Every structure is written in C-alpha cells, then in structure tokens.
C-alpha cells in the first residue's frame, strides 16, 4: 500500500519544478497553478515563463515527463491497462457507486444494466458511465477502492 501511494502525483512534485515566482501571468500563484494543473483545469502552456525563459528548460522537460500519464488518464484521473486486466470483477463488485446504482451487484453478480459505472465484458473491464464514478469532478472524492482490490495492477490512480 505504501508503495502504491507514493506513485501518485502530488501538487508539491509539480510545484517544485515550476518557476515559484508567483508572477501570476497565468492568473494564479504557482502553488495554486500546480493544484489546478493536477486537476487538469489549466494546461502547462499557460505558464509562459516556463517556456520563454531558457533557465527553466530542464524543469520544463521534467514537468512534461511528470504529467504525461496525467494527460492520458481519464477525467477521473484513473488509468486502466486493459492488457493487464484478467476480468476477476473485484473492482466491479467492490465499487460503492456500482452497488448504489444496481443493488444486485452487492451479492457479487455482474451488473445486468448499462447504468453502472463499469462492468466486465468479454473477460475485460469496460467503462460505461464515467460520470457516475465518485472521483468524477466537480465532487471529486478521493476513492481508490478499484485500485486497491485489483489483482493485476491494471487500474492505476494517477493523482
């Protein structure tokens, strides 16, 4: 578990690589920009000094590497590796949102309707309604039950 948490992106990791001048050219302080970047409310390009000043070139390179998984993640900041998925269904049954939508899921039965967040189809996880996930903005809960119950580390919470 400790290892898992440490792989997550934190605002401080981003902040460290920003100019830290609080110039507010982007409209935020640097710390605020880091938080908003993590929530994908702003883009890295909005921080103009980072691109214009050659002394930040190394930082920019590191930042781009750091946030690469963030940009490829879903809106709930989760990445799913379908190749790793073995279709055990742990995530589908453990998901509180799934159970709230379809109570039969509580008994371990795979969802029958397409109203749930996700289901198992052809032996792989399949996203149906991402907006019903508890991690979905704006009411983002820091839920990661699907990640911690996954046997094969196919589900990864990015931040």
């Amino acid at each position: 578990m400790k290892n898992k948490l440490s792989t997550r992106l934190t605002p401080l990791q981003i902040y460290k690589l920003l100019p830290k001048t609080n110039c507010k050219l982007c409209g935020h302080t640097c710390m605020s920009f880091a938080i908003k970047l993590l929530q994908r409310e702003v883009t890295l390009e909005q921080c103009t000094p980072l691109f214009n000043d050659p002394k930040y070139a190394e930082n920019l390179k590191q930042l781009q590497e750091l946030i690469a998984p963030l940009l490829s993640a879903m809106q709930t900041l989760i990445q799913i590796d379908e190749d790793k998925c073995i279709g055990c269904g742990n995530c589908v049954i453990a998901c509180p949102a799934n159970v709230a939508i379809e109570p039969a899921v509580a008994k371990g039965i795979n969802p029958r309707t397409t109203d749930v967040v996700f289901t198992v189809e052809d032996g792989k996880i399949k996203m149906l309604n991402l907006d019903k996930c508890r991690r979905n903005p704006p009411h983002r809960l820091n839920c990661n039950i699907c990640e911690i119950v996954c046997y094969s580390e196919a589900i990864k919470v990015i931040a």
Partner: protein
Amino acid sequence: MKKLTDIPCTGCSLLCDDIVIDVSDGSISKVYGSCSHGTKRFKEVLATRLLEAKIFENGITRSVATEDAIDKAVEILSSAEKVLVYGFENSTNETIELGLALAEKIGGTFDTSPSICHLTVPLLEKYGVRIGELEEILDKADFIVFWGANLADTHLRQASRYSVFPRGEIVKTGRENRIVATIDVRKTKVTRIAQHQLIVNIGEDLDLISKIQDAFSQESSTEDDVAGISQLSFATFMHDLKNATFVAVFVGSGVMYSINVDQIIENIVKLVKSISTKKTCTVTPLAENLNSMGVTLISKKKTGFTYAIDFSNGSPVSNPSVTSVTNQLLRGNFDAAIIVKSDIFTHIPRSATKQLLKIPTIALEEIPTLVSEFASVTIPVTLTGLETGGYITRTDGKKIELKPFLKPPKNMFSEEEVLRKILSKI
C-alpha cells in the same frame, strides 16, 4: 441475436451461474460477467474444437466416421488385458459414473489428474469437519484464509463472486467486515487484497499449523518468529482469528507442492476441527479442474476411494504408491488406455509418458491436445456446458445443472453417449 441469462460458466470449478451471453447464428458474440478464463472457454473453444474422428494405424492417420472410431475403440479395449481409464476432471457427473462403470467392467484402473480434493475430502469425513458452502461463506464468513491458493491465477471470480467482496446477510458491508489472510510461500497477486499476508518458510507449514493451534487453545503468545513470519504479524493474525465468528479456510493447490502434503492437509483439517469447537469454522478445497470435486465425491461414494482405483481383482482397491497411474505405467502394467478430456502428458513424468506412448490410446477430446495428437483413436465430443448439459459438482460439493444453448454439429456425440456406446458394445 438472442440474449441468454444465468448461464453457468464451465471455465473453472466455481461454475459462476450469472453469465449473460449474446448468441447469434450459432456463435457467441459477447460474454458478460465471466472472467478471462470463462471468456476463453466460451469464445475460443468453438473456434479451435476437434471436428473429425481419427484413427492412427500403421503410421498413417486417417479420418473416419465417429461410429467407426467407437468400434475401433471397443476393439482395442476388448483385446486389452489391463486398461487405464483416465481423466474425467472436466466431464459431467454422469460421465464420471460411466467411467467408473467402464473401469469396473473391464477390470481396469480408474485415475484422474492430481487434485487437492482427493486428499481433503476423506479427511473431512474422518474428522467430522464441515465443508464450507460458498453461499454460506458469502453471507456469514468474517475471517477468510487462503492457504496456498493464488486465486488470481486459478479461480478469478472467487473473491468477487463468493467470498471477500460481496455483501452478505450477516456480513453486511462485505469487505469492510471481513478479514482476509493469505498463507503462502511467496507474495502472490491475491496478497494484495489481504490484511494478513503470512509468508511461510518453504517446508515449515506444519510448524505454523502447530503454533496457530497452540496460540488458539492456550491463549498464550509466542515470543519468537514463527516459520519465517514475524512475531508481530503472527500476533495480529491470531488476534483477529480469535475475534472472528465464522472462519472460512480455502485450501489451494499450492499445498499440493509440499513434500509432506498428506500431513499438512491432515493438520489443517485438525486445526479447523479445533477452531470449530469455539466458533464456526469450515474448510473448502479449491478444485483445480472443472469437476475435480465431482470425480472425488462420486468415486468416494461408489468405491470408497478418491483416486488411483484399481479394479483388476474385481473389487476396488486404492493404494496410490502402487495403483497410481504413474507407478503402473512405469511398471508397464497397462496395454491400452482411454483418456477422457484430460491432458495426461502434463500430469505424469516423462518416463511414464514414454510408456504411455507405447500402448494404444483412445482419446475423447473437445479441443486438440497432446493426447488427441498422439492417440491411436481420437473421438471428438460435444462441448460440455455449451452443447451438452448434465450436472457438475462445484468446488464446495454443490451440484450445478448446466444449461446448454448451442446445437452440436451433426454426427458428433457427447462424451456420455460415446461412453454409453462403448459400454454397451464391450
């Protein structure tokens, strides 16, 4: 397109009965709810199946009609002195009964692939320990132990469908109310979902069992590490075990790889017995193959033994060190073999395989395997659970009725029909 619901899956011995399947024009287009093993069973088996009966004679393989292949099989079996009747761990209960009847009729030896059930079931009866039913465990178990079981490789939906995650009648919040412990010699994928991850030194299972027994009965705590497990981990494990009300122990095939496997299983069963004096405690073997439990229970009921049953003296005898398939093959006892849906080459050592290749073999198979490749007579059979029905015994001993939903190809029989024909002609 037709949507079929509640189809039992024949991917493993859990027989999950909540599978939804889309069928169109005799083929399966989508499978909902099954794990990757089940999906493979449903979708790939149709594409790779055997379609033609074959006879290998004088160095030439020729395709024949199924009836001719059956006649040839009868000829081989009738002329043989002693026959090996092997397999059945992927067959229906009805077929297993026919297999036993065949072995008895021709005075052969009935054996099946090695399974944890063979060793566990007789001990459960001996010590009066209850086998844990999966539904009961779902509703009540608040302490679950996986002993030598890596569910992420063998029984993928065990935790999500029957034990850890579902919310039961008494264990209302599911995982939050349950404590999961894994006992294994290494870290496996299933340890990710366990609160207690006990990693035992190889060969020290017996030591661990006796320490658990002592700590449970004497209320004492150990000062030292136990079988490679730190004192703190062991103490917290024991604390949770003592506070639990319903303990469910699952024994997996990992235990089979120990040298003193008989002793370990016997001691686990004894431990369960002593825990059950203070609280409910059950043990459930996790059958490796689809119907390993069925083979075990049916042969136990019919003959009193669970595997390596020899009928050559009329009455059934089982002494695995003498009558097991490997020992008899090495001594060159058999002069013919009939293998029913079992890849025997992966179960026996190379030296025994060489002996097996010398004798005529009859293979009843759904899909091409090494056995069907090398057999003298290969008879394709219809797909159990997809094209033919019957009953299969789940890993906890409950009988599940299959619901076939596809039409079998013409001129192809089920394994049950083939065996019935062979039995009537011998």
